[in-house]
């Protein structure tokens, strides 16, 4: 990048004009990972329509089905879900919450090129990625009832959002990596003091009957090594804004990074893109340039990324 432009961007960010910059230069080149978000303080976010405004007709019915799939993914679409997660676990408030990858900020940005699969993805293809990685499952066909309904729900939540204009609150508004990096030992301490009440010391979550109330964070029932949330930077963004539930923004950026690293150093289902059973090859091809992650890295003498049985 031209040094002058670089300097200009720094000045713009520092002067609080970062929002304008982010909103105008929508990143259409690669949406595998979103650009670092500007400060969220005093930010005004798009408000999706109220549930009560949904019409009682065939369209409204499809949107409701989409919403039901979104919050009860495992229960209603078990054929596509290989773990114990529901979409709503990472997209809080039923896909409405800013900085929790809200659907209303995603829908209008597709089709888009993604480096992750090196092609232009439709919104349906983007959701197929969620099922393959985040749900560790089987990809539903683009014209399957579940994807059609989820698309309708996303479309309706986006009522009034301009097409191809990046919205504040998109993605997880990741805080910058703290100076000096992250520290998994401190992350463990943060986890034990702030997270175990809900997610358990073993990160396995908790359920009533067959339904999980607190989602599993690692292990066989969580997202796999190919999911975006396996990146420490992405998890740090989610945690920073939304965890502990109802007490978002109570952790420092460093605590969010540390605890995200602690969560994401634990084993989870293997990356379905595993090349010839070789973690190192898979790391080089899919993880080396995918944000900050520990796949294929040796931590305390143990190779991370071996997957769960």
């Amino acid at each position, binding site marked *: 990048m031209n040094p002058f432009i670089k300097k200009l961007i720094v000045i713009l960010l520092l002067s609080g004009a970062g929002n304008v910059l982010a909103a105008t230069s929508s990143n259409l080149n690669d949406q595998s990972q979103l650009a670092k978000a500007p400060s969220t303080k005093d930010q005004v976010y798009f408000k999706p329509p109220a549930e009560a405004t949904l019409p009682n007709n065939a369209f409204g019915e499809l949107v409701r089905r989409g919403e039901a799939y979104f919050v009860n993914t495992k229960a209603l679409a078990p054929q596509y879900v290989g773990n114990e997660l529901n979409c709503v676990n990472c997209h809080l408030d039923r896909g*409405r919450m800013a900085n929790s990858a809200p659907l209303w900020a995603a829908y209008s940005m597709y089709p888009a090129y993604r480096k992750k699969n090196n092609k232009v993805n439709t919104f349906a293809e983007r959701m197929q990625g969620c099922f393959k990685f985040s749900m560790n499952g089987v990809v539903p066909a683009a014209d399957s009832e579940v994807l059609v309904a989820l698309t309708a729900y996303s479309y309706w939540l986006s009522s009034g959002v301009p097409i191809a204009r990046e919205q504040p609150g998109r993605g997880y508004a990741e805080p910058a990596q703290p100076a000096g990096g992250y520290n998994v030992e401190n992350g463990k301490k943060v986890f034990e003091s702030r997270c175990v009440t809900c997610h358990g010391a073993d990160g396995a979550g*908790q359920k*009533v009957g067959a339904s999980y*109330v607190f989602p599993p964070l690692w292990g066989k029932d969580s997202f796999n090594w190919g999911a975006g949330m396996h990146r420490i930077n992405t998890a740090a963004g989610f945690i920073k804004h939304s965890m502990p*539930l109802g007490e978002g923004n109570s952790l420092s950026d460093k605590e969010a990074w540390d605890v995200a690293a602690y969560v994401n150093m634990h084993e989870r289902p293997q990356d379905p893109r595993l090349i010839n059973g070789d973690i190192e090859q898979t790391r080089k091809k899919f993880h080396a340039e995918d944000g900050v992650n520990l796949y294929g890295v040796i931590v305390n003498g143990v190779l991370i990324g071996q997957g769960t049985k």
Partner: protein
Amino acid sequence: MKKYIGQQVRKLLTAFLLVPALASAADGHSIALQGGGNQAAMPCVACHGEGLRGNPELVAPRIAGLPEDYIAKQLRDFNAGSRHNEQMQAVARALTQDEIAAVAKDFSVLPKVNVLADMPLRPAPDTAAWLDMRGAWERNIPPCTSCHGSNGMGIGNAFPPLAGQSAAYLKAQLHAFKNAAKNEKPNRKKQMAAATKRLNDPNGLMRHIAASLTDAEIKMLAEYFSAWAVSDEPIAPNRVFLK
């Protein structure tokens, strides 16, 4: 009041002695019926009712089937003063650590509450059901279900069942959390004593939420959760709860 409690004790002792499983049970059950070694630890059934299912008139909660760790923690917290209640603090202080462990263990295996009906899937805005299932995120209030589980049945050691508790008890607890969150310094000592506080929620999770609830919402929520018909039937492990 004393006479009333006396009558209740006699009534409940009779009722309990007729239940062989409980009458023949271990230490915790004898504390429930006869009190602790120290007389100040009154029999639990005196206030918490038959089968320890609670007594709304005394604002005494159901303890039957609550998680063992939760019961033990409440007693320790009454003792330490992080949970306020004159009667319970006196009782907790009179119990030994062994007695606390025994009641927690034995009461936790009593029948748990179960709500057999499914929840409504479409709550109306500005209702308790809406708060329960949707929350009020603009005030950082998550849905109750996201921690207490569907149907208010509770989960794990830290999130007790709401189903099976009386409106009077739930209302008192939400106000106690709210009072603690306010951290007010009343002018007179009398007022301070009147404002029952509860500061023993893990990570302040409930204080944080109660602080944002209006008094009208507290009343509404307490009535909503207490209105569910509950049963002692165990929760089926394969039961699916839709949100």
